[in-house]
């Protein structure tokens, strides 16, 4: 099937006609994404009977719209309450919540929504036209390259540690140690689990995330009357449509930033095993690296919100690529979508394009349409959502604890996970009070096991030769970039000092 202008228009209009399923999917997705513990794949699993009862194109459109919306929803609590709804929104807390504390919650939300929807829109259009090309990415990025890509994310620990090196590194290594718990990646033998069955699959990410961010935030919150400063409160109360427009203006001036960080997400999404967390952290790290004002990151900087949000929605487009192009799902949500296709008797992979091209291209087009609907439905809500930040903490904190504890229980239904959330909450509280950064701990927990997995695979493929890490051209290019991204701030600092010294003399 040729993808000419008339076909594209036909696909667009057809997807548009499915608005009646896209709009509810968006709302469900945003709500589920905003509740820590719920993600696209478990929401789709819950709604599986619905997707099996309707025609396959309706089912796919519903799932795709819901999937995209969950990543957008995850950013809302990350900004408002420092609680990422999904792992992919963890990086959003770094600057998003800082903006909220300054009374700029509405602006931060608009930035996140604009970055998510435009980032998602751009990457789904790129996917529509460049699917065969994108499917080749997996042929070049193997375990070795994955190690380096994930190290980009891990270097954020060093960035965080820049303010207080010892504490930053301690927090990062503590996270890495926690991430190393669970069954080993080769023999599946449990290690560091203290014999606890519930830890055999590693430290559960969602309860850890809830504890480190939500519970500890609630503990900190109750020590003050409001999330935002008194100056910020005044600003938040005065928030009007003008703030929404201001957020949009900032997003528009950063359009190129949205494009390239969403493309990072797209490429990461194409890689099997990688996901929104990696995409968001890598995009944040790269955004900071190429910034002329890296010191502004972490202090409520607009680009620090745009980068992770654009990237995590870019990942959603990417994860569909291996499923559509090869027939292998790129992540857990795509795997659940594959089940629905199988139940409907629809082939996937290249056969889908041969036997049902309208359906194959239609999946991607429904993503495009879903993002357009999202822009229209979510932007006006920013003004009202931002009011959460002025809710007194005596009301907000208990609600956060109650809601998020439910979220900690949902993914695995282990009561143990409630304990994990509370334990991490206490760790997070102590960390905050003593100047350790909880994000550094979480980066270690999320990325540590993934780096280890790829590293061990690379070693097994090379029969134990560690030089395998420098055996591919692409890998070596990435290593050089990684080294540069670590060294560049120091080199620039040194150059600036030298220049200043020369000027002074």
């Amino acid at each position, binding site marked *: 099937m040729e993808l000419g202008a008339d076909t594209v228009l036909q696909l667009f209009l057809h997807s548009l006609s499915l608005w009646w399923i896209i709009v509810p999917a968006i709302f469900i997705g945003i709500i589920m994404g905003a509740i820590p513990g719920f993600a696209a794949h478990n929401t789709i699993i819950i709604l599986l009977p619905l997707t099996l009862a309707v025609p396959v194109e309706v089912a796919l459109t519903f799932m795709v719209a819901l999937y995209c919306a969950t990543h957008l929803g995850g950013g809302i609590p990350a900004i408002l309450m420092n609680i990422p709804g999904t792992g992919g929104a963890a990086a959003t807390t770094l600057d998003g919540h800082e903006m909220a504390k300054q009374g700029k919650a509405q602006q931060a939300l608009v930035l996140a929504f604009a970055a998510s929807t435009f980032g998602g829109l751009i990457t789904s259009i790129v996917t529509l036209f460049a699917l065969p090309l994108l499917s080749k990415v997996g042929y070049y990025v193997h375990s070795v390259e994955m190690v380096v890509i994930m190290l980009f994310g891990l270097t954020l620990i060093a960035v965080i540690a820049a303010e207080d090196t010892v504490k930053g590194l301690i927090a990062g290594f503590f996270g890495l140690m926690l991430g190393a718990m669970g069954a080993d990646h080769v023999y599946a033998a449990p290690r560091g689990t203290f014999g606890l069955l519930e830890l055999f699959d590693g430290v559960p990410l969602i309860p850890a995330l809830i504890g480190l961010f939500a519970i500890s935030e609630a503990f900190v919150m109750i020590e003050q009357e409001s999330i935002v400063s008194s100056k910020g409160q005044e600003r938040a109360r005065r928030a009007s449509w003008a703030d929404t427009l201001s957020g949009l203006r900032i997003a528009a001036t950063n359009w190129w930033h949205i494009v390239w960080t969403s493309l990072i997400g797209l490429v990461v999404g194409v890689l099997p095993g990688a996901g929104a967390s990696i995409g968001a952290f890598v995009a944040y790290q790269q955004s900071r690296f190429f910034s002329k004002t890296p010191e502004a990151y972490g202090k409520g900087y607009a680009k620090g919100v745009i980068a992770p949000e654009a990237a995590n929605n870019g990942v959603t487009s990417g994860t569909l690529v291996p499923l559509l192009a*090869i027939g292998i799902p790129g992540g857990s949500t*795509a795997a659940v979508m594959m089940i629905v296709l199988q139940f409907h008797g629809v082939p996937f992979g290249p056969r889908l394009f041969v036997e049902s091209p309208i359906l194959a291209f239609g999946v991607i087009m429904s993503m495009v349409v879903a993002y357009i609907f999202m822009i229209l439905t979510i932007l006006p809500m920013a003004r009202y959502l931002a009011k959460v930040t002025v809710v007194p903490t005596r009301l907000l904190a208990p609600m956060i604890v109650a809601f998020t504890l439910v979220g900690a229980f949902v993914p695995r239904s282990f009561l143990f996970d409630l304990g994990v959330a509370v334990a991490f909450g206490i760790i997070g509280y102590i960390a905050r009070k003593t100047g350790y950064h909880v994000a550094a701990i979480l980066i270690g927990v999320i990325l540590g096991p993934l780096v280890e997995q790829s590293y061990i695979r690379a070693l097994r493929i090379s029969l134990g030769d560690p030089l395998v890490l420098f055996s591919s051209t692409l890998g070596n290019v990435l290593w050089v970039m990684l080294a540069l991204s670590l060294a560049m701030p120091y080199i620039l600092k040194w150059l600036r000092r030298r220049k200043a010294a020369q000027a002074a003399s």
Partner: protein
Amino acid sequence: MKDFTITPTRRSFLKGGAMAVGAGALSASPLSKAWAAFPERNISILIPTGEGGGADRDARMFATVWRKYLNNANFEYSYYPGAAGQVGYEFYAAKSEPDCYNLLFGNLGPEIIMQAMQKPKATLGKDFIYFCQTTDETMCIFVGKNSKITSIQQLVDEAKKRVVTVATSRLPHPASIGVLALGEATGAKFQLVPFGGGNPSAMAAITGEVDCCTLPITNAIQLDKEVLILTLFSKQNVFGEMADNAPPVNDVFGTKIPELSSSRGFAIHVKAMETYPDRFQIIEESVKKAALDPEYADLVEKAGMPRSFVRYGGREETVAFAQDMLALAEKYGSLLAPKKK
């Protein structure tokens, strides 16, 4: 919490199997007929792997037909992946109610090998028993479509010159055993690389990260032209062109590698079978009816898998399959476990 301290051995497993058969015989007696209302509520199915995997797909597919033989029951699914399935089995044995409303749907091959290798507290034969298999598929070796290797003979010749890398979903798996047995029988050198699941393993072979991949055959058949199947660990290739007319491994090398397959099927608490023989009888009989219903085979075919994938096995057959797997795990166990220093 219940104490599960007995480690799995063939003896304990056989003892449990005998108990299970005995409980079944008792349940078949006319004494127990007060079971017409079962099930009165939803049946919970625990899957010891993740959402969207093969076991999830097959359990749901089977349940769509099964419910009509089971009082139009509804099913709830829960997922407990981790440690090659150990988390799911331990959770099932220790924390789910042994009342016939809680079943486990697992991958018999790899998970029985896990039982033998990792010796979990939840013991096969003592705490739970597989009472049926619904599907069965042979293991195979395949390469990506761009690979220079086009036959199993070529692959083995290459593996005699250098170490050939083989992607596998996990080490304790019948497919991994097949590759190790092939290496032992032919002198070929293979390095197994676990990728943690069928999809990433297949991807590694397709993208050329590894030389080849070993998995159950439906994974390869569903990938159609993206892969080339080189050989099957079975007596014959009943799939023909769907499996690229690949020859059985023993036909090529004259070896005596045992048939290697993996079944999927249901397990139940031994205590539930003993306490509620009437309920268990309903479950067992209805599973059989559903598995033999052509509608189930139609569903399987519609999902892109061969009809021969459906293979019902009763309790005795499933117990025999489990014994074979335990024997294989014992034979190749040292190759699948970390070397002790």
